[in-house]
Structures are given as C-alpha cells and as structure tokens.
C-alpha cells in the first residue's frame, strides 16, 4: 500500500478497492514500527485518525466523499490543531494544545483527509537539518547517518519512508524544498499569499508559506487544490481564483523556455549534484524545451538579506512566548523580569535564541537603517532579478541544495549551515513559487532539481514537474528502509 502515491491511493479509495480504515491502520502500524528509528513524528494521533477514517468510509458509502476523503496525511507540528499538542519543535510549546485549527488544517478536514499525526521539525522552523528540535534530530531514511534536511525534516522523512503518503510542510527559506531534495520526494513552496498562514505558527511572517510534500507533482497538485485560496483571517493571503492544478498537469512542454541561473552553478556546488541537474535539464530538452543561461545578479546578497529580515521578524513574532499566558514557564520566578528571562532562556533552544538576538540587534535604534532598511532594498532588487528573468524564460531550473544530505552533526558552525540555503532563500525573498523534484542520487543520497516560476505560476510548475516524472522514475525510488520495515 505504502509504495503507492497519494493519487493512486485516492483512486483506490474511490473505487472501493481500499477502505480508509485499512489504509489508516496500515500507516499507523508503520509509524509504530519504524517511527522511533527516524524520529519523524512528535505526536501520533491514532485514535482521532481511526475515527476520521471511519467517518471517511461512511462518507464514501453515502456518496458525499471528495477525491481526498479518507487519505491519510501528516502535518508539520507548526500547524495549530484543535485539542492536539502543537509544539513547533520547541520545549516552549511542549505543553501547548492549540485551541483552534489552522485554516489549512480546517480545509483538509473539510476535504475529509485523515491526520496521522504531527511531524518533527527544527524548532520554530529555524534550521536546515532538523537537528534543532527539542524532540531530537530526525534521520534520513535513505541513510540513517544523514540529516533529512530542515526545517520540515520530519514531514520529508515520513513521506520518503512510507509512513504517510503525504505531509504538509512550511517554507521560509527552503524548508520544504531542501528536505524534499534530501529525502527524494516532491515538495512545493507556493507563491507567498497563495495559502493562508492563519494558524501556522509564525517564524518570519513575510516569508513563511505552507505547501505540500508528497511522492509526486500530481500528489502535490491535488493537495494544493485543497490548501490554496483566500482566507479572510489572513490579510496577506491573496483573493485570487484557484485553478484546478490537476487539470493542466499534462499540458505539453514543447516550446517551454527554461533559464539556468549562472549563479546557481558556481562555486560550492557539488559536481554530482550539478551533473544530475544538467541531466534533468537535458530530459526537458528532449521534451521540446529550449534552454538558456540567465543571470540573477543579486543572488549572493540573498543569504545576508534573509538573515537580517527573518530574524528581525522572528524576534518580534516570538515575543509572545513569555511564560505569562501559555507555553513553558520557569519554576518559582522571583519577579516579572526573572519570569521572562528564565522562561525564554529555558524554553527556547540555542538557534532560536541566536536568531532572536540577531533580530533584536538589527531592529535596535541606530542599527535599523543599516540593517533592516538596507535588507529590504536588497530584497526588492532580488525580486526584480527574478521578474527580469521571467521576461525571457518561463521557468528557472537549478539545484535545490548545493550538496546531497550531509551527515548528522556535520555542520557545527551556524554560518556553514546557513549557506545550505543559498539556492532556496532568494525565492522566499521574491515571494515566487518553487518546487523540488527528485533527479538522481549521489552516494546513495537523493538529489533535488529545483524549478522556479513567476508569482502564482504553481499550475505551470506542477505541469513541468509532472512531465518530468512521466519520463523519469527518480520519484518512484524508495529507500531500503521503507522496504525493510514493511
């Protein structure tokens, strides 16, 4: 069962070949058997899942089901789920049961999906390896000595290992695309404003975006159909019609103009990754696409700009975790200041504290213009780079990450970790969509091809990714781990 894609499972449910209860029990059993090894789940909601599965089966019987009714999913533990622990990978929220559902969670519920549980993640989505979790690191199912990527590492590992057909992730600087690449799955970061952020615990509000992580682009299309759309509770969520993303998956690619940003093929790029990406591009040429080099001249400013803007927003977004109303509170505070200091020092991990400090500093009087205002100017230039490129080409292609998954514990110095996101971060600064699709292996570890489109070009990205997956089978490869634990 777990070797099937979400689309195949949905069809099997629709034809009555499978019941949601069978399917849900199967995945729950797999999580129970091998979940501990990967550490990809923080919370497993078995009872609620079975209840939902039975309700889905009843809906099928009554004929009120939609395509995804009864399909099991996992949610990154950043999405608020009513009555269920929503930890955001942090000790700060280890005791927090959200009193409401995030908009996307609500939408998925309405569509009849079944939530298996909440997946592990870097604390407050800050990290590129999933090693910054209060609940411990997640392992990469392709190689248990490797990281799964981050921050949506639990979601990526769980999908790759066949513990769930699909999962939701969030992407602030690459947190869907990079773990998707590291784990050999397909992950889409939609345009900023395409999916509601309401109920998604904020890291950097102007960059955060939720998206699907699954086995194929087709799976992602079906999930995005449910997730996307305007939400009156999120002012930054755009009121713009949602196309049927599955409908255009098979549009022919002849005449597609692909741009390769020269800055994405420079120093620091692993030769095997480069080789895999160039081979993927040649597959597109065989499908009728034309390829040319383009330039995104401000690319090298993306990481510095991101590490001003994201921590600045984070330092403010995370102020509400003060030990007063919810979340972690230190023992026996002597006074208010002691309560604040110790609750936050004990409740937040090192990387979160580091980014709060950076953000607090860059917003301080006397530094604001030099850092924040300057970074916003850079952000506009980066956005313009992409808009200029999309004048000439339809999509951009390059690696999702400079290397395949690195070893657990390999990157001790924060800056070397930050440099991991060199190809993904600019995309969030520009607000455009991006997708990572499996495109090969290096030393047994997956390689991701990143495809970028202009604002609201999700349908095109999914189409372009799907056509690749019709021609190649990288996305169908499974780690031995998934088979052994079957």
């Amino acid at each position: 069962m777990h070797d099937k894609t979400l689309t195949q499972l949905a069809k099997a449910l629709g034809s009555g070949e499978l019941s949601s209860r069978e399917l849900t029990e199967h995945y729950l059993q797999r999580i129970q058997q091998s979940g501990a090894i990967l550490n990809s789940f923080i919370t497993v909601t078995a009872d609620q899942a079975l209840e939902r599965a039975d309700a889905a089966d009843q809906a099928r019987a009554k004929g009120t089901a939609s395509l995804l009714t009864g399909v099991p999913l996992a949610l990154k533990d950043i999405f608020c789920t009513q009555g269920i622990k929503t930890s955001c990978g942090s000790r700060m929220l280890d005791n927090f049961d959200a009193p409401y559902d995030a908009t996307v969670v609500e939408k998925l519920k309405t569509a009849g999906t079944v939530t298996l549980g909440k997946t592990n993640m870097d604390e407050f989505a800050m990290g590129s390896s999933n090693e910054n979790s209060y609940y411990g690191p997640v392992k990469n199912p392709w190689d248990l000595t490797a990281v799964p990527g981050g921050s949506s590492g639990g979601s990526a590992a769980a999908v790759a290992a066949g513990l769930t057909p699909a999962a939701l992730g969030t992407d602030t600087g690459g947190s869907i695309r990079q773990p998707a690449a590291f784990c050999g799955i397909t992950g889409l970061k939609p345009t900023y404003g395409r999916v509601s952020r309401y109920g998604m615990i904020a890291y950097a509000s102007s960059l955060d975006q939720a998206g699907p992580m699954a086995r194929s682009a087709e799976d992602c299309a079906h999930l995005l159909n449910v997730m996307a759309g305007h939400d009156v509770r999120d002012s930054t969520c755009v009121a713009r019609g949602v196309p049927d993303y599955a409908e255009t998956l098979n549009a022919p690619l002849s005449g597609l103009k692909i741009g390769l940003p020269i800055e994405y093929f420079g120093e620091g790029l692993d030769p095997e990754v480069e080789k895999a990406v160039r081979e993927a591009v040649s597959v597109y040429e065989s499908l009728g696409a034309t390829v040319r080099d383009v330039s995104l001249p401000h690319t090298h400013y993306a990481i510095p700009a991101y590490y001003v803007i994201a921590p600045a927003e984070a330092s403010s977004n995370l102020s509400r975790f003060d030990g007063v109303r919810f979340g972690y509170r230190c023992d026996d505070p002597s006074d208010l200041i002691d309560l604040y200091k110790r609750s936050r020092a004990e409740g937040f991990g090192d990387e979160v504290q580091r980014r709060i400090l950076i953000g607090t500093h860059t917003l301080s009087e006397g530094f604001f213009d030099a850092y924040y205002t300057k970074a916003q100017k850079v952000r506009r230039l980066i956005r313009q780079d992409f808009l200029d490129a999309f004048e000439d080409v339809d999509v951009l292609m390059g690696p999702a990450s400079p290397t395949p998954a690195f070893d657990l514990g390999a990157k001790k110095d924060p800056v070397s970790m930050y440099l991991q996101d060199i190809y993904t971060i600019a995309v969030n600064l520009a607000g455009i969509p991006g997708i990572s699709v499996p495109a090969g292996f290096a030393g047994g570890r997956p390689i991701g091809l990143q495809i970028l489109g202009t604002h609201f070009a999700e349908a095109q990205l999914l189409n372009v990714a799907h056509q690749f997956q019709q021609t190649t089978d990288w996305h169908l490869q499974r780690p031995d781990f998934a088979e052994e634990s079957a």
Partner: protein
Amino acid sequence: MQWETVIGLEVHVQLATHSKIFSGASTAFGAEPNSQACAVDLGLPGVLPVLNEQAVAMAVQFGLAVHADIPEVSVFDRKNYFYPDLPKGYQTSQMYHPIVGPGEVEIALDDDTTKRIRIHHAHLEEDAGKSLHEDFHGMTGIDLNRAGTPLLEIVSEPDMRSAKEAAAYLKAIHSIVTYLGISDGNMAEGSMRCDVNVSVRPKGQEAFGTRAEIKNVNSFRFVEKAIAFEVERQIELIEDGGKVVQETRLFDPERDETRSMRTKEEANDYRYFPCPDLLPVVLDQAYLDHLRSQLPELPAEKRERFQQALGLSAYDASVLSASRDMAEYFEAVHRVCGDAKQAANWVQGELSGALNRENLSIANSPVSANQLGELVQRVLDDTINGKAAKQVFQALWHGEGTSADAIIEAKGLKQVTDTGAIEAMIDQVIADSPAQVAQYCDAEPEKRGKMIGYFVGQVMKASRGTANPQQVNGLLKEKLDALL
C-alpha cells in the same frame, strides 16, 4: 525672570467601533475579565490580525474634521516591548506612516478670541489589556478585554502656552470626536486619555526647554492641575540652579502632584518595524470624498453660524456648540420658538441649572427640546409671563403635564390682559388698603414710584400671578394719581 510655558498633548481616543481593531471580539466596556478576548487578542501562536475598516473610516473622518492631509498610504508598525498585559509582546501602531497627517484645531479662549493649534499627526493603534494589582495576594491579574480596542492617538504640535489653553484644546478634541460620533468621549471609563508634554523657557527665548511627559491624565481638570504643578516644579528647579531632565512622570490626582516614573536613559528601545502581517492601507480620493460628504456640521462651524446667522454672542455660541447634544437641543428649541436669543437663555439658564442640580446630561433631560420650545413660544406670544413660565418649566421637569399648553391650562396660568378684569382687581386692592393709599397721597411725588410696588404686589397676588405686570403697573398709577 518671566517664564513661558510650552505644552503639547498626545490624546488617545478610544474609537466607538463594535469590534476590536484587529479581531472580531466585542469592545463593550465593563464585561467580566477576559470574556471579550478572542484568540487574536490573546496573541495565541499562529493568529493573525485583520484590520477593522470601521476604525479606518473613523480615523479618516477625524482627519477630515481637522482639515488634515490624509496620505494615500499608511502603514502599521510593531512597537516591541514586554509587559504582561501586552499579549503579543508588541503593540501594533503606526510609527512612520500614520493615517492622518498635519492638521489644525481652533480653540476658544476665555477672552472670546480663538487660537489655532496645529496637529502633528494622528495614528491608529491597539490598546493593551489591564494589569490588576489588587485582590490577587501579591500577584498581578491580567484582564485582556481591552486588548485590541482601537485607539486614535492625536499628537499636537507644542502650540499651547498655558494650562487653560491645553484644557481648551482637549475640550475641542473631545467635542470633535463626539460630534463625529467616533468616540463616546467618556473620560471616566478611559475612552479619552491624555499624555501631556510640558516645558518652560525664559520669555522671548526661541529654543524649547527640556520637557517632561506626564502620562495618563484622564480629566480636563487634572490636565490643568498637572500642568500647573509641573510648570511650578520646573521653574523652581531652574531658579534654584537645577536642570529639568527629560523624563516620564505620573500625575497623582490625590495629591495634585507629578512624580518621576522613568528617565530617558531607562526608556525602552521599541524597535519599530513595519508589521508584516498587515498590508499598507491605501485610500483613494473617492473614498475620502465619500467620507467628507458624510461629515456633520462641526463645532467650529456651528459656533460661527450661531454668531453670524443667529446673532448670538461669542460666549453663547461657544457654550451652545460645545457638545453635539447641547447644540442639537438648542437648535430644536430655536426651531420651535423662533427666537434664538430666548432659546439660548432658556437652555443655558433654567435648563442647564436644573440639569446641573440633578447631575443629568442634556441627552437625559426630562424636558424635551420640543416642550421647552413651546414653553418659550408662550412667553413670546404673551400667553404667560416670565414668572408663570418658570412654574410651567418646573411642572414639565417633574412630569406634571405633557406640554406647556396643558400645564398652563391646568394651572390656570394664562396671563390676564383683559383691562376690565385687571381694573376690577385694582379697585378692590385700593378699597382694601386705605392706610397705604393715604400714605401714597401724602408722600413726596418722587417717592411715589417706589411705593407703587406694594399695590402691584397685591394685584399680582390677587391674580395668582397671571396678570400682565406692565399693564397692572400702568393702570395702578393712573388710578392712584386720580385720588390725589
């Protein structure tokens, strides 16, 4: 040394929206603690703000009323600081691009002149909750009902030169916001609060002195008292060779003094930056034109019209236009009776006196404007005399009749102007008062005028106050002089 006082005010006006500025929770005052705070107000993880359009419209209406520039784009910023009654750890406010730009307000001074006070800007922001320090045995209770209530902060230029001017400015703002209906202006419930910036400088000096900011002064009277104390404190300090330090002070209304709260060095760095959860507010000309067309006549325009078109004195015009309720009451009385001066006298005299005695607002007056207008009309058409009119007013006040006419009828207060009837009463009084008549006849002619008062009193008494006093006076003089 002659000193000059320089004052600027920051007035926080609670806007009368139904729901909060960024959430759908109610803004009603006085509910059980924390019963009117939703997930957004509590700052729960994952929640997002959505701007209340009504708050925007109200802020713009204020801007239009003070002839301010309304920028096309305004932006919300986050003001970051930690405090238990600030749930998100930041207040959403407008630091760099406020919704209302520079404007001005005209204030009326005691000497019947006016002065223009410039407004630097006005911005929208959310209120914080309340910390309750009593009843929690050494702990602090937090009530977040008020958190997220929309505030318009109106910042003046340092244009006021006395406590009286500051109070007049505050009253002008109060009357504008209540005229517009964008706030209930209830200072006791905190709907209007004010921070006062005060400095002194030697008269003639151009540079400002160092200012102190007095926080949270919440009545017109306290504003005057706080400034008076602060000015004296600063002058004394300087004259004793000291220096005023820039600081935040608190006014203690029990002792009529201000006390230091924190100095500039202890001030927070609020780390303002644009709120990424809210889009910039973009207002087009059509929207402004629409709101402008909905504006009511404002206090300054009314005051002007009351003087020019109705011929009221500057003082009367100013008193009667101070509140929208008062002005509308006066205008209704005037419409019914047709005499502005009489209407003004009655509203400011009899009616205001009665309202003050019973501590009632004009909106809750037991005598309606229509009733008062009819009463004044009866005085003007000589149906009753002034004395009877006061009786009728009292009867209306106590609900003894539904209209002036009904009461006049019931109490028989209709003025007697029938000469024959009055002459009969006069003859009777003269016949009943032989001694007084003899005295009158014996008196020096110039003293007789005074003595006639006795006879007038007797006749009025006999008529139970209904005789026309001028008529009585004239006829009596004729009849008594005929006896000489």
